[in-house]
């Protein structure tokens, strides 16, 4: 089978306010039902490309809000553990979050709320993807390229890829699969990298480590 080269793309993300906000858990559920699907993308993945500090205790903005401002550890934990990559589409993900929130509302004696100024603001994003003009034919060449890749490229090929590849995978593994079984060990190592609870910087190091380790072993 002839495999095409691995084309390096890069991306940048810009946040757009929707004006939708929630001051308590019930409002949060109601807004969630109707907000732009881009909001789910932004609040689950967009944070990686936006100002944050280097200790991602929670995987998504909903869980952060529930913990820090609603002070409801139960729902925060339940929201935090959602893996957006296992859902086939964004509407299934939306339904799962609504389900968790409704369950919590049903069992609560009162509606958890936050004081003014700490509302949850729904934000959506616009993503610009650009071709860097660089491509690699030999997987071994990626050894040198990965440490120099921008965080935007890491985001595009390792995170964003999960909403456009069969089986919600990363682009590297999909490309390597085109070489028949030759790189199965490397594919397995890449597939085993958990993109949660991490930063793009750490992710780049992990991908680099997988490549280095694989080729060091004489493959």
């Amino acid at each position: 089978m002839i495999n095409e080269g691995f084309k390096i793309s890069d991306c940048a993300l810009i946040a757009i306010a929707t004006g939708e906000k929630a001051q308590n858990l019930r409002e949060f559920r109601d807004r969630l039902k109707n907000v732009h699907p881009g909001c789910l993308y932004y609040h689950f993945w967009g944070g990686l490309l936006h100002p944050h500090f280097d200790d991602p205790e929670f995987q998504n903005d909903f869980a952060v809000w529930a913990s820090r401002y609603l002070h409801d550890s139960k729902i925060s934990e339940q929201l935090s553990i959602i893996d957006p990559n296992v859902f086939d589409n964004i509407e299934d993900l939306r339904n799962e979050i609504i389900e968790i929130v409704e369950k919590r509302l049903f069992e609560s004696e009162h509606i958890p709320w936050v004081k003014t100024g700490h509302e949850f603001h729904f934000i959506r994003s616009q993503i610009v993807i650009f071709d860097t003009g660089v491509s690699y034919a030999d997987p071994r060449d990626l050894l040198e390229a990965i440490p120099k890749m921008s965080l935007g490229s890491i985001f595009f090929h390792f995170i964003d890829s999960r909403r456009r590849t069969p089986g919600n995978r990363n682009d590297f593994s999909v490309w390597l699969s085109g070489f028949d079984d030759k790189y199965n060990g490397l594919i397995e190592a890449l597939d085993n990298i958990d993109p949660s609870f991490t930063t793009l910087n750490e992710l780049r190091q992990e991908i680099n480590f997988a490549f280095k380790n694989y080729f060091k072993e004489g493959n």
Partner: protein
Amino acid sequence: MESLLEQYASVVGNEVIDHLKQLANPLKGMKILHINSTKEGGGVAEILNRLIPLKKELGIDAEWEIITGEKDFYQCTKKMHNSLQGNRDDISSSLLAVYESTNLQNFERLGKKLEEADIVFIHDPQPAALLHFCKKRKGKWLWRCHIDVSHPYRPVWKYLREYIKDYDASIWSLSAFVQPLSHPQYLIPPSIDPLSEKNIELPKKEISDFFDSWGIRRNTPIVTQVSRFDRFKDPVGVIQSYRLIQNYVPVQLVLAGGSASDDPEGQEVLQEVKAYAGNDPDIHILELPPDAHRAINALQRGSDIIIQKSLKEGFGLTVTEGLWKGKPVIGGDTGGIKLQVIDHYCGFRVSTPEGAAMRVRYLLKHPGTMKRMGKNARQFVLDNYLITRQLREYLTLIVGLLYGSKEKIELKLPPSLTTGK
């Protein structure tokens, strides 16, 4: 001599600069015009000073113009500024007439450039009415709001909204500031410039000379607030905090402020602050000229703790400057500071003079925590709040605007620019 982009690469890394170059590719040759109301003083002028040459180096035809006006114009725009930040300050119809006529006069002076620009960034309320007079515009117009408009005084916002609503998009520092408008509202926090005189590394001697020249001792802890003398910055509240600290630990307070040419209230507030400070030899009130960037840099580097106890704040550049110098920052729990100071990580957010006093005492008692927070602070700014990040977002936004409101925009390179390995 190194290009500007090469100089930035030494701070943020080559990959960040390459990313900017790629993003700027489709915008090469485009005319981008920024308009605000002052060339000196205040965060907007500081950022534009560097953003324009950077855009030019990326091949974009960027320009910066200011609007000018008489005393009544600035009195009106100061009232607008205060009202948008929540003060109930009605503006007389005669002052609003001055606002409109001044915008018209400035349009007559700048009209050709405004009509021909591909993208026009209008910063803050002062020049917001320019669009109203520009009937033959060619490009897209963006209104950039740098202030905290989370709870504006409605009559003033309602007046201004009539001008803002016709823009193609607006840009806000924080989602909490956004007011309902029908055009796209982008979120871009401001940033600082690591290569500016205010933020570059300084020789130790220059720092100690600065403190000697103002009679500030280096052997007693120094807590510093750098900001314009403005009631929203709560300088009097900072002195109240200092008085709650000095009963327990020796400390010196420095209140350093420049003035912006578009702020007529500065002198009045400065006199109030001086009167409140009295003759206390450990309170140092420094009146610095708008271009005293190295002095402010030295002051921040030589201080132990930076404080920014604002009651309202769009985005406190002095907060980020302090963090960049590896200092823990105690900031008012308001506006952009909520995004800038991660509580217990790179400083503390407080709501009262008592809260600020408690956190200063805690930090002075725990120097290890101060050091750890300072280290976190610098890394946090490196990752999130340098000018290269803001430039990236401006470029992304422009591409976004040009390609419509699609969620995903894919740019293709011409075949001549592709390389295979």
